[in-house]
């Protein structure tokens, strides 16, 4: 398992392998081929950042460019999922959910329940999130908390190439609607990824580092920051357990609770704005179900309650930093 590829390549490979395996898998989105109707190459773009590149020619007729009509084509993906396909639709930036959320949260998410169990909607919505690209307030949000709140949706936040591939394959095979969150800064992250196909089950956290002093739960890009902070804390003699839930819904509560039972101290790292966030969600879980073990206040490391600023000078302050995480670890550890 020595081969290293990027997070972006891992996603592309997962799509490619699932399309090869299952003819009902289709891909759609704005410029997912790229170049439709244009004189040049028909897969000129392969997605705005090239994630779906190459699929158009390999899987003829199954990579569909769409007009800029997110309600239209994401709803179409949902409808197609009700009629035998397994569409993977791309919402280019999660920030655009505001023009198509209904088809996701009132339609796809609720069909099974509203219809008394008699429908299934195996649709995947891939979407790009997160700050760090100097893309400003309308192209940098996290927003996975909104999807996590909605019963009927599963929400995936891969933090590395290996997970990205395995979780996307699971997402495509899953019979529920899945929101697959790709952090734009992670696209270039390299990692070991097996060539063969594999699925990572939902609701199973990955424990990146074991430790007895402080539990850190982090999501997406923040998992890597948390690992760095944990390594730094280690040098100061503080042993952290770093947990990457990998899916926010379903959530692997047991792994988190067991870890806190052991450490008694918890830091949650979430790139989102703080209110009603995954940070508060995990804090609520632990304050209710592992209270007896807690030895210190739960430290929440999040972005501030402001939109994402454009200027690098501000954006770098907006995103939780390794230093802030480390400080939270030390604070949790030192609390008496």
């Amino acid at each position, binding site marked *: 398992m020595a081969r290293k590829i990027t997070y972006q390549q891992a996603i592309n490979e997962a799509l490619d392998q699932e399309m090869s395996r299952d003819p009902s898998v289709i891909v759609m989105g704005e410029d997912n081929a790229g170049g439709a109707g244009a004189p040049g190459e028909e897969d000129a773009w392969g997605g705005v950042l090239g994630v779906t590149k190459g699929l158009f020619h390999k899987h003829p007729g199954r990579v569909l460019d*769409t007009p800029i009509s997110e309600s239209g084509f994401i709803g179409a993906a949902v409808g*197609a999922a*009700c009629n035998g*396909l397994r*569409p993977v639709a791309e919402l280019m930036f999660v920030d655009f959910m505001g023009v198509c959320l209904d088809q996701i949260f009132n339609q796809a998410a609720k069909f099974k329940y509203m219809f008394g169990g*008699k429908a299934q909607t195996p649709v995947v919505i891939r979407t790009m999130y997160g700050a760090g690209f100097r893309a400003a307030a309308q192209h940098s949000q996290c927003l996975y908390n909104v999807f996590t709140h909605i019963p009927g949706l599963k929400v995936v936040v891969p933090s590395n190439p290996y997970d990205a591939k395995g979780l996307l394959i699971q997402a495509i095979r899953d*019979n*529920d609607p899945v929101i697959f969150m790709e952090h734009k800064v992670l696209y270039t992250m390299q990692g070991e990824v097996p060539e063969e196909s594999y699925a990572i089950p939902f609701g199973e956290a990955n424990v990146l580092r074991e430790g007895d002093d402080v539990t850190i739960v982090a999501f997406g890009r923040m998992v890597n920051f948390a690992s760095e902070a944990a390594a730094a804390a280690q040098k100061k003699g503080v042993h952290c357990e770093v947990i990457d839930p990998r899916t926010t819904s379903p959530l692997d509560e047991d792994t988190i609770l067991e870890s806190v039972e052991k450490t008694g101290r918890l830091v949650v790292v979430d790139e989102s704005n703080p209110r009603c966030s995954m940070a508060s969600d995990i804090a609520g879980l632990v304050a209710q179900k592992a209270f007896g073990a807690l030895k210190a206040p739960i430290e929440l490391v999040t972005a501030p309650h402001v939109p994402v600023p454009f200027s690098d000078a501000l954006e770098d302050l907006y995103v939780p930093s390794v230093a802030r995480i480390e400080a939270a670890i030390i604070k949790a550890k030192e609390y008496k």
Partner: protein
Amino acid sequence: MTSTLNREGLLKAYRTMRTIREFEERVHADFATGEIPGFVHLYAGEEASATGVCMHLDRKDYIASTHRGHGHCIAKGVDPVGMMAEIWGKATGTCKGKGGSMHIADLSVGMLGANGIVGGGGPLICGTALAGKLRGDRSVGVCFFGDGASNQGTIFEAMNLATVWNLPAIFVAENNGYAEATSSNYSVACDNIADRASAFGMPGVIVDGFDFFAVHEAAGEAIERARNGGGPTLLEVKVSRYYGHFEGDQQRYRAAGEVQALRETRDCLLQFRRRVTASGEITEAQLDAIDAEVKALIDDSVAKAKADPKPAAADLMTDVYVSY
């Protein structure tokens, strides 16, 4: 008689329309007693639309419906007994009592659900049509929506997408003159909804929704074109609803006597009966027999709905994920 339907087809059409009417009249009566919970929107008056369209469909064709969905359901073949139980909130309902009037669905007969979100069905039906197209199974998707919904972005986006992807999709705008209390003359910026078809590169057709045969013929053409790869059509059906927007609506925005006049002069069942008996193809007695059978069926559905059990507490937590 220009209809392509044989006697059997005619009887089926009449039975469908009568079933919808009887169903809705009964829900209306029972709602008044306070026994039926929630928001209920009745389709009475518009029967020829759902029936004229759905006569051309089979179970692999999907329809998407609206908050006013009972008629579409019945026309598409959903069992009225299950529907009635659903509306009464019973465990035996089409959706086990979890959906109610606004969410009756039965995918096994190609009914993708009533929908509580105005305009919600447009995108969905593009998807079912796309699946059919990619499979090459000659199936079509039909989206029913109202005049109010015709101003919703989702419907516009869906129509554009249907042409861009050349989908076998039919958009049936049921223009009953009102969205709640707001007149379509006010809310629709052009004269006819069908006039919007050209903006989305598809044919637009206007049809009298009280005339089953007119709807049947126009829908037939559009559906045939779609099955043959000819792409989408926008069909505007001019109709009227006999009851309020929802049960409880006092309808003070409507001229007094408007509905009564329609019932007496243009009613789809009345017209249908006149025409098929005049042509000699069907006898009054045959239609009366259907009326009686339908009445018995609906009586039975209500009796069952009343007697059936409510969902059990455990049902609260099931059906939310295929697998968690």
